[in-house]
């Protein structure tokens, strides 16, 4: 794949949330507001970008045995750095993301791309892949966040778009609403796939997890 393809891969073709079905936890949790989705997406993209580069640079140095601990350490370091920066410079975002900011460490997308791409490719490619995946993640988050925010609170990025006289569909801001929106988006994507003949087999549980080969839990997550 050429550089551009690597980058755009993560946007649509292999969108981490809607096609690879990775990182659904934060997707559902933070998309109550578009701003939160954007903030989470940018934070995750930053971590993804940095960790992909770092892991790619170290790919020949890290022995196979200690792959996972090493990746996690690297990822966790970057997440902690992001957390401190967010706390200092954008405290409002820190409050809204709450515990999901440190939980980026266990975001499947990051560990997944480290395993699936960065450990096997050059730094520049890995960086582009990280950016692309992160951007795809961010776009999906913003999309879901916008839908839930507009329908659930009548605002978009804090600006009221639906006149206050119309009752809000507050169901959308609840977790149930999140699942519902996610399901609808996924259905829409599959519909488009079918139309364009691009159907991708989605696997759930251990089958879809990027760490399948190294995981010791053997189905323990399910």
């Amino acid at each position: 794949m050429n550089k551009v393809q690597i980058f755009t891969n993560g946007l649509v073709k292999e969108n981490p949330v809607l096609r690879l079905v990775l990182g659904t936890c934060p997707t559902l949790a933070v998309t109550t507001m578009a701003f939160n989705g954007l903030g989470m997406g940018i934070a995750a993209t930053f971590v993804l970008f940095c960790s992909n580069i770092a892991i790619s640079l170290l790919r020949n140095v890290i022995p196979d045995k200690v792959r996972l601990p090493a990746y996690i350490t690297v990822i966790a370091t970057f997440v902690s750095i992001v957390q401190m920066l967010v706390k200092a410079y954008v405290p409002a975002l820190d409050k809204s993301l709450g515990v999901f900011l440190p939980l980026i460490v266990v975001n499947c997308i990051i560990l997944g791309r480290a395993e699936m791409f960065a450990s096997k490719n050059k730094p520049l490619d890995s960086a582009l892949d990280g950016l692309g995946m992160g951007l795809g993640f961010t776009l999906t988050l913003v999309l879901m966040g916008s839908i839930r925010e507009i329908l659930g609170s009548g605002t978009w990025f804090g600006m009221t778009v639906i006149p206050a006289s119309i009752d809000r569909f507050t169901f959308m801001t609840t977790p149930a609403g999140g699942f519902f929106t996610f399901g609808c988006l996924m259905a829409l994507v599959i519909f488009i796939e079918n139309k364009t003949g691009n159907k991708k087999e989605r696997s759930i549980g251990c089958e879809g997890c990027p760490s399948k080969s190294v995981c010791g839990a053997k189905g323990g997550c399910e």
Partner: protein
Amino acid sequence: MKNNSTWENFLKPVVVLVVICIVASAALAGTNQLTAPIIKAQEEAAANAAYLEVLPEADGFEEVTDFQSSNVTKALKATNGAGWVIQAYGKGFGGDVPVVVAFDSEGTILKVKFMENSETAGFGQKLADPADADGQKLAESFVGKSGTLEAGDVDMISGVTVSSKAALSAVNSAVNCFNEVALGQAAVVEEEQLTPDQALESMELTEIEIPEGLTGAWETANGTTVLRTEANGYEYETAPLDVLVELDADGNILNVWVGTDGQTAGIGDQAGGAEYLNQYKGVLGEAGLDGVDTISGATQSTRGVKKGVRKCIQAFVAMYPDCAAATAVAPEGGDAESEAASSEAAVETVTLSDEACKAVLPDATTFEAVESATSGVQAAVKADTGWVIQASAKGFGGQVPVIVGLDADGAIVGVSFPENSETAGYGAQLYEEGNESAAALAASLVGKSGEVAIGDVDAISGATISSKAVVEAVNTALSCYNEVALGQAPAADEGSEGTDLSSMSAEEARAALAPGATLTQITAPEGLTDAWQGDDGSYVLYAEDKGYEYSTKPLNVAVGFDANGAITGVWVDVSGQTAGIGDQAAGADYLGQYTGITDEAGLDGVDTIAGATESTRGVKKAVRKCIQAYAAGLAS
């Protein structure tokens, strides 16, 4: 290759990981250096925001930590002399009610802000809601005042007494602290409630023989007796309550101390608080305990304290059989049951005053008391325009009295609720003045006649049991009307007292389930724990099922069948179920539903008791087992 493999397999991984970790730590430390000061400044600004809100003239605060006043979290002096800001709290309904008070340099209150609290939504939470008019009114009523304040000085929120009092006490604590730190007066320190061990240390004691069931017994130099026992609070056997009771020579309770380690903090340890324990002072004998309320939300702990005190009283009476406490009417039996039995037996007659009658029957002018034999009726009065009857029924914590005014045709004209001992905030709302839920319930009864069902009225949400008691009392009043106005035979109290099987022992219950028959034990069919056959073709079958405690303490149920296979009654052994809730599963009201059922299909009509779902489901399952066993083998 061999050399490499030691390096490859053991050393390299370790080295690589260590290096990665060192680099990571360095990066983190660097970022921390950069961001930590910024983060700290922000947190301080957020905290100060609340203080600046109440004292905007201040440009900064310096904290004063050297003070003794109780219930104060922070005392801040404005650096420019604009005044003081003091954060204090008061003990509310569900926990602390925190308050931030701004004083000018002389001590006049400039502003009061109520912080977030965990009081009841719609009641105490109004305090912290800036949009709430009542909360704002109360906060504003403090402005301009100085010195210790009384409830009459400020605009307490009606219906939110406990939280308003807590807010008032919080502001007063702030005032005390101001007086101490700004004006240099002596601090007002609240007396800490002593634990039993501390109380014992403060007294001069001689040990005496410890009666059975107690953990300690002493006599003091003043001639009083001190008894110590353990009672089960919320944690049951793992963390029992330590209860210490001091009694005088007559058996009057002078003091109660409670050790509450192991109870839920903030809830159960109110069971050890002065406000609750002061209720015991002056209690004479077991009968006196009926007047002691439980703390809503800390029912198990406060019930535990009551049980402990009861044990001590019983032991005292056993030690000194001639004391006054012994002759105070003492009910027999276990604890929750004896409370229930005593409150059921105590449907005492009262005299209705003319005003009480007029309150429910406004057009009447003449009142004449009449006699009624209907059980549950406390007073019956014939008026010129109708009737006024006071009846009561068993609620959650005791009897719930209701005064019903009826017109000459027996339709309800007015309803009022005298004081009861239901849970504060729930059934106690009935007699709270101005309480909307109580008013709605009363209004929904007007116009009804004959018999009222719970579905016909506006029950108080969350106070189901008390509301049901109100309906039962109203129905009792209506039956009384049938007796005194229409001349019908008085309704004997069905089920509540006479045929309450579960207060009987196993043998008595068995006999009651198969009346008139001689029972012989037979081999229990599969699935049952015991079976008895009567000589008239009746049976009494026993089954076990899981109640609330699951397999640790299953429900033991006995079902009586007559010769035709219809259920005569059900007896339930509820030891181990949650007192007050699960033992309703053994109450006559609930079990009466089973009488007459002939097959499994009949069970569909039996309701579960809300709040005691597990226990009542368990009873149903056990009864079902008995019916199945009967149908399978024993039906002739």
